[in-house]
């Protein structure tokens, strides 16, 4: 039981980060149809800016806020300078632009910061909490709690505010949304900013556990994308479930099967799910219009 719980918490913590990255993917994808491969770089920015601001003597909370603001600014710039000018280009062109942006941001981070690994102090100490024999880092609860807050806030925003509903409307049908007077450009900017904020929050929450460096983004983008797909691209609930599931698959795969092939195990499950449910677990059925 202790062993099971240990794997469970390990999987949930890692999965929560995947979930946040997947959520970021989903938000931008819904508003613009773009799969943003620079999503992992937002996570990197959240961690790195906080580390360097804190090292400059700024209190941690303020440093974290600065990091979120910085990520949001970069997200907005990415939209304004790279996505908006290419409006109307094909989806795959936009994807390549985000890949370019990811290379650029990584190059920039290597120059502005450095190429070393960095850590942040855990928010509430390092003493593990014993849960029925499993030793859990207090920071894990911050990650899980933080993820829950972000998901809840996003839900309230989407379902209970006019702007949120405009995002949903844009996601459902961009042309129709524009026809009813929604400024889809603003909505897209909002999505990039929000998605950057979510990524940065993930980076800040998880850096005390996983450490960070200028190039942590690539793998997170890959895993987050996989999680979003597993859950069903475009569905926020799916993104969260997909992320947690992917984390759990890895942890239990490493614990009970083989640590070497844990990634293979996770991706095999994704392949099987997609074969059984080609739209992901919670995906919408899309009918192609001719």
């Amino acid at each position, binding site marked *: 039981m202790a062993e099971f719980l*240990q794997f469970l918490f*390990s999987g949930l913590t*890692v999965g929560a980060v995947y979930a946040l990255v997947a959520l970021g993917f989903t938000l931008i994808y819904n508003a613009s149809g773009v799969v943003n491969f620079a999503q992992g770089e937002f996570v990197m920015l959240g961690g790195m800016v906080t580390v360097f601001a804190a090292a400059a003597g700024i209190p941690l909370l303020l440093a974290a806020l600065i990091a979120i603001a910085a990520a949001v600014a970069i997200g907005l710039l990415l939209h304004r300078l790279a996505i908006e000018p290419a409006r109307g280009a094909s989806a795959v062109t936009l994807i390549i632009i985000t890949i370019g942006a990811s290379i650029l941001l990584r190059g920039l981070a290597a120059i502005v910061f450095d190429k070393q*690994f960095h850590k942040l102090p855990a928010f509430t100490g390092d003493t593990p909490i014993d849960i029925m024999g499993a030793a859990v880092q207090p920071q894990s609860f911050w990650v899980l709690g933080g993820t829950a807050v972000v998901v809840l806030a996003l839900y309230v925003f989407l379902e209970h505010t006019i702007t949120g509903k405009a995002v949903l409307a844009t996601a459902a049908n961009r042309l129709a949304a524009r026809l009813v007077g929604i400024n889809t450009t603003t909505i897209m900017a909002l999505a990039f900013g929000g998605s950057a904020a979510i990524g940065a929050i993930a980076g800040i929450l998880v850096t005390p556990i996983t450490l960070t460096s200028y190039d942590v983004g690539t793998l997170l983008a890959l895993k987050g994308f996989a999680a979003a797909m597993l859950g069903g691209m475009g569905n926020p609930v799916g993104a969260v479930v997909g992320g947690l599931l992917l984390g759990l698959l890895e*942890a239990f795969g490493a614990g009970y099967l083989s*640590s*070497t092939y844990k990634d293979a195990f996770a991706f095999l499950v994704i392949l099987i799910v997609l074969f059984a449910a080609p739209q992901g677990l919670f995906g919408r059925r899309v009918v192609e219009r001719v």
Partner: protein
Amino acid sequence: MNAKANLKTLLAASVMAFGVSQGALAQGTIKIGSVLSVTGPSSFLGEPEDKTLKLYVDKINAAGGVNGKKIELVIYDDGGDANKARTFATRLLEDDEVIAMVGGTTTGSTMAMIPVFEEAKVPFISLAGAIEVVDPVRKFVFKTPHTDKMACEKIFEDLKKRNLTKIGMISGTDGFGASMRAQCVKVAPNYGMQILTDETYGPRDSDMTAQLTKIKNTAGVQAVVNPGFGQGPAIVTRNYAQLGMNAIPFYQSHGVASKSFIELAGAAAEGVRLPAAALLVGDKLPDSDPQKKVVTEYKQAYEGATKQPVSTFGGHAYDGLFILVEAMKRANSTDPQKIRDEIEKTKGFVGTGGIVNMTGTDHLGLDLSAFRMLEIKGGDWNLAASGS
């Protein structure tokens, strides 16, 4: 119409491709090349190497150069990509026409570049860890870092002294971790070591509690060895403490031999042992130690110039550069063949990694005594009391 468009594009592409201006061959300089992983997953190795080479080439030139000639250093960044490294190796030899190379951050890129240097008959001093770089011996290939096999032997020697023979292993699946894991498995029987459980983690994994839990629940494990580099070992060390495994002796490898490991792992690093070069404990060496002068001077110079803590990785570059410079002085020539012969005759060279004595059958020239067994105490490196 299309013809023009196509032609124009191709011309543009070819200009981009081949219009790279060729550095004019300056008279009276010696060109030394280097391909390093300054970016990419091994950048924490490549960056100190890069800084060290630049720092010391400047120093050498300021002091008048070698044999009256200034050194011109050409460094390319392979980003950790072996295929790119290979292209840069060709570029160094064919385009820059270097007479020797100190570089090759990872074993992967070193192995990819070896055939190019062997074919061109230009000496190549590698900074990569694995034993396969110099075993079998290749005529023009040398290396400065201790091999992973030596690290395993040093660890097992220490374990044997402590009467611990049943171990668990948790290795990174990056090139360094995988290669050292294989060497450890190979030499374990020589020391009567029994590997009870053998786990791995990916180079970018962020949580290793699942693997460590398995090791923890394996009955009879007396010590744990973690071959790996980068941020992985720091996370393993933190998870190790999180799971309350501190009572079991824990060994890291020379792959974490920089102060940043202690910083990243924090309090969890207390009591961790690892084999590493004397460089890390320069100030704690007795004055009689022949390496003391070299390592303290390098540490001061490096930390003064870069404002970053010294690592043994940069030290390997220092050793490689000076082995080459001394060989060039002895050869009093810029003929790669003669320089190669002199590198092979290196005797009693005191470097940051140890005292180097090369022979025709040993292109590394270090023995186990070059490794010191260190223990982390009070957030700093200490020489481990042997046999305790």
